[in-house]
Structure formats: C-alpha cells, structure tokens
C-alpha cells in the first residue's frame, strides 16, 4: 500500500458509497478549513484555494457556499441573506441546498443563527461571539482598479504599498468633494492588508471593526478566501482631515415598521414619490411582530435609534 492510499484509507468508504456529508468530499472540506485557518491567522490576506464545482453557477455565491458547507454540522443554524433579504430566490435556494446537504436547521433570525451566509449586507442586529458571518465576494482584489496586473498587485500587497488607494481618494475629493465609493469600500485590516469587504454598503463597513464575530470572505470564481477574526481593527481608508462616512439616510423612515437610522431600500412609487423599507428583512419581520404584540427578542443594533454607532468615536464627523 503506498503512502497516498494509507492517507486516504479513512475516506475510502465514502468514495465507495458515493456520498459525502455536506456535498463536498472530505479532502475539499479539509483544504477549505486549512485555508480558513490561514486566512484567520493573517487577517485580510487573500489565501488562494481550489474552488470546487457546485450545482450553482460561479458568481452566484459559490465561494460563500463552499465555506458554509465545510463549516456546517447537523447542529448548525444557518441564515442566508441576499442583499438584506431572506426571501429572495437566491437566498431561498442556497438555504434549502444547505439544509438538505448538511441537515442543519435554518432561521431568518440573526440572533439564533450560528452561520450567516450573506450577499452584500451585514445584519442590523449585532452579531455575537461564536457566530460566523460568511460573505460572498465577487472581486476580492481591492487594488484591481489601480493595478489591473494581478502579480503586480500581489507585490504591492507584500510591500504594503497602498499609496494608490489614497491617491484614488484624493482624486475623488478633488473632483467631487467627497469619497465616491459606495460599496466594497476598501479597509485596512489589522494595520497591514487592505481588503475589499465585498460589496456591502458603506453603512455596513464599520460593523467589521472590532466585531465580536468571525467574518470569512470567500470568492469562488476568483478562488480567494480572506478573513477578519473577532476583535480585529478594520479601518475604512480615509484622510486625517477628511473622514469616511456612512450613507446619510437620516430622513428615511421604514414604511412598514417606522424604523429609522437603519439601512433602507428605496422603492419608487407609481406617483413618482419614493417609499423606504428596511433592507434587513429578518430584522423588519421582528419589528413588525413586536408591533403586533408578539413578544420577540430583538438584539442591540450596530446603529442605535439616533444613528449613533456602537463603537463611540469610531465614525468621525
């Protein structure tokens, strides 16, 4: 018996049965877990991994799905978010697939979930220790716009040469008087690597700073995985005298729940006016239930009812 066969013996049975728990075979999950450990050890560093084929198309959340599949167990509680919504086609499909493949239970309640796979949003309620947020990433490379050559960009990461990112900010201030990047706002992680936090709105970016939960960001098409461990500094790029700011939606009120100072969807109306709705549907459903008189536990939110961020002084004005 050669060495490879000795090593693979524990998985031979699985090979014969043609069935693997959590869709991916054990080797794939093991590789992903190692990749995750490396990513956690070097916050913000993009670790390459072999992205596996899945029964959904590349670009539809395969990166996040592989991470969730290799982290989930039967006792896991999974929530899947697509742009804030639990009920969109993509979120519902992924949730059903995850439940079927892992036997895990699912939820729309942020407080109950152990694994939250998300596209483009971080929930409004604060995530706690022990929870993991898995973000689907279309383009992991924050330097793409300033350096299209990926090997040069990797050298720039190695040298921590991020001056061109600040030059981009400088240009935006000169041309428009404010930072123009709306989503996937570049952040400096742990004072070392600049990362793209996936296309979450600016509103969600500060939520990654000194967060209690683990964030894993995975790009299936680009085959890169990176992480923000709990209680790690994540600072959006800004100048000493011109600060990063979240979206100003101070006058926007949710038409269903009356909530304010949360991230809203803008819904155009037939008469030309605009209505607003909470983007986080799980949170909106709980607020609505509380209004209707059903007692539901609602966790503390990142932004309070006056729009103040929970890390006082982190967002400067």
């Amino acid at each position, binding site marked *: 018996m050669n060495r490879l066969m000795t090593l693979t013996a524990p998985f031979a049975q699985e090979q014969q049965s043609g069935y693997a728990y959590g869709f991916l075979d054990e080797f794939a999950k093991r590789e992903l877990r190692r990749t995750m450990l490396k990513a956690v050890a070097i916050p913000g560093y993009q670790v390459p991994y072999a992205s596996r084929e899945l029964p959904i198309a590349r670009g539809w959340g395969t990166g996040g799905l592989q991470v969730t599949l290799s982290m989930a167990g039967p006792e896991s509680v999974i929530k899947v978010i697509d742009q804030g919504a639990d009920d969109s086609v993509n979120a519902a499909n992924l949730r059903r697939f995850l439940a079927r493949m892992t036997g895990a239970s699912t939820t729309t309640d942020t407080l109950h979930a152990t694994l939250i796979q998300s596209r483009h949003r971080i929930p409004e309620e604060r995530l706690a220790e022990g929870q993991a947020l898995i973000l689907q990433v279309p383009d992991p490379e924050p330097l793409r716009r300033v350096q299209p050559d990926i090997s040069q960009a990797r050298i720039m990461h190695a040298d921590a040469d991020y001056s061109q990112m600040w030059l981009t900010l400088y240009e935006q*201030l000169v041309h428009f008087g404010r930072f123009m990047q709306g989503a996937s706002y570049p952040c400096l992680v742990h004072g070392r690597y600049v990362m793209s936090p996936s296309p979450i709105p600016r509103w969600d970016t500060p939520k990654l700073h000194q967060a209690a939960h683990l964030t894993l960001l995975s790009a299936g098409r680009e085959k890169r995985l990176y992480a923000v461990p709990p209680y790690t500094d994540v600072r959006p790029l800004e*100048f000493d005298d011109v600060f990063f700011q979240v979206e100003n939606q101070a006058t926007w009120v949710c038409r269903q729940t009356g909530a304010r100072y949360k991230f809203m969807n803008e819904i155009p109306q037939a008469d030309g006016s605009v209505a607003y709705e909470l983007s986080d549907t799980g949170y909106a459903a709980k607020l609505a239930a509380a209004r209707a008189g059903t007692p539901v536990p609602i966790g503390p939110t990142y932004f309070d009812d006056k729009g103040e961020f929970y890390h006082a002084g982190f967002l400067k004005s």
Partner: protein
Amino acid sequence: MPVSSSPNGAARAQAVQPDMGIALQAPRLMPHAPILQVTGVEKSYGRIRALNAVDVIVYPGEILGIVGESGSGKSTLLRMLNLEELPDRGDYRLNVPGVRSDNLFELDRLPRRDIQIRHIGIVYQHPHLGLRMRNTSSGNVAERLIMTGERNFARLRAAASGALAASEFPLARMDDLPVRLSGGMQQRVQLAKAIALRPALLLLDEPTSGLDVSVQAAVLDTLKRLQRETRVTMILVSHDLGVIRTLADRVMVMRHGEVVEMGLTDQILEDPQAAYTQQLVHAKL
C-alpha cells in the same frame, strides 16, 4: 599628490572646518565629498553590452551633463541611477543624510524603493513614463507625499500646489488631467512631481527633447532657477549640446556604453580631445 601648505593655510582650514581635526585636506577643485559615486557599472542585454565599466562622480549642487548618440547607454545609466533597474555589476553610493553608505544596488526592494522615493527625483523624456495620465496633475504630485505616509488632505493639496508653483505650472489647471495639457506643461508636472519631496538628486532624461524651442527655453529657465534656489544636484541627459551648454557644469561624453571623455563643459565643448567628441561638437556647431 601630496600638497604642502603653509601654517597660515592650516589655521584657516581648521577655522573653517573645526570638526575635521588636524588632518589637512589637499586643495581640490570641488571642496565637498561627492554626493553620488558610481563605480564599475556593467549591464548587458543578451549579447548587447549597454554599459561597460562606467564610473560617475557627482558633487553636491552641480549639474552633470551626459551626452552621446542614441544607443550610447545614457538612458540605461539614468535608469540605474534611479534604481529602476539593476546592473549586472557595479557599486552605487549616495552620500545623503538618512541613506546608509551601502551599495544601493545590493539593497532589498523595499529599502531601495524608499531611497528612490525620498532622495531621487526623475523627469523622463516621455510624460507617459513619469505621470499617471488618468489622475489629475496635482494628484500626480501629491502621490509622492502619500508614498511617504502623508495622510492629511489639506497638507497634500498645499504641497502639490507648492511644488507645481515652484515648477512654474499655472495653478488654475492643477486639477486637469495630464492628457489635456501641452507638452511643456506635462514636463512641468513631471518636474513638480520630482521635486515634491525635495530630493537630493534630480535626474533629467532629455527633459526638453519633445518641446519647441521657445517652450524648451522656458523649461530650461525653470530648471536653472530651481537649481539656483535649492542647490539640488542634477544629472542631465541630452543629445542636444545647446541644452548641455546652457545648464551643465561638467559633461560626460558616452559612446557604446563607455565614457569617452569627461570634464568641464566649456573645456569639452570648446576643446574636445577625444575624436568622437570632436565629431559630435562639430556636427552640432
């Protein structure tokens, strides 16, 4: 050659440089230690020998002109001096406060880049090589400060407009893209970028070759004024002997990757010794 000096001279030398101790220095044309000392630079591209045992010594505050025909190795030498490219062999020392006196060619990429950013400025013949054409002119200048860790927008603005003003760029157009500027203005932006961090060494690679005569004269005037005001050391590469005559203190003539002749500008241009230099001077005049 040992030079005997009178006791009077010794006293004067000590009064001028008290920290030099009692060791007397022989009188020299250039009173200072060289700011840049390059010895034995060799570089081959395949079978082509681009530089062959080239030595360069530059003293603080002087302008060294390098002339020679196309393909003589002028620009290759300048790229080496800018630490953009490494030679096959050679020794490069920069006598500048803050720079270790090691061979700069042997430094790692990161410290080498640091020296390149802080102590060396360069103006290329083609603005495309030196400027980011998609960024504003002021942004191009500000980038140099960002590279050294400046993160204050107001200070970046002030420094950019200061450097652009020093290179006599019209400040009303400081936020235009370089593609929308004339050739002379583009060269001024490059110059502002090069001097933004007040480098000890300014490298000019045919800075006025693409410009018409009147603009050329204006840019040369700016360079001359800058040199007068800041006493920055310059190395000027040009095939135009008129430019060299206007600016350079000393001239180095290159051919086939070797130094043919070196000396004071007037001396070389009025009384060339090497056959090639004679040919060059007479072809021009």
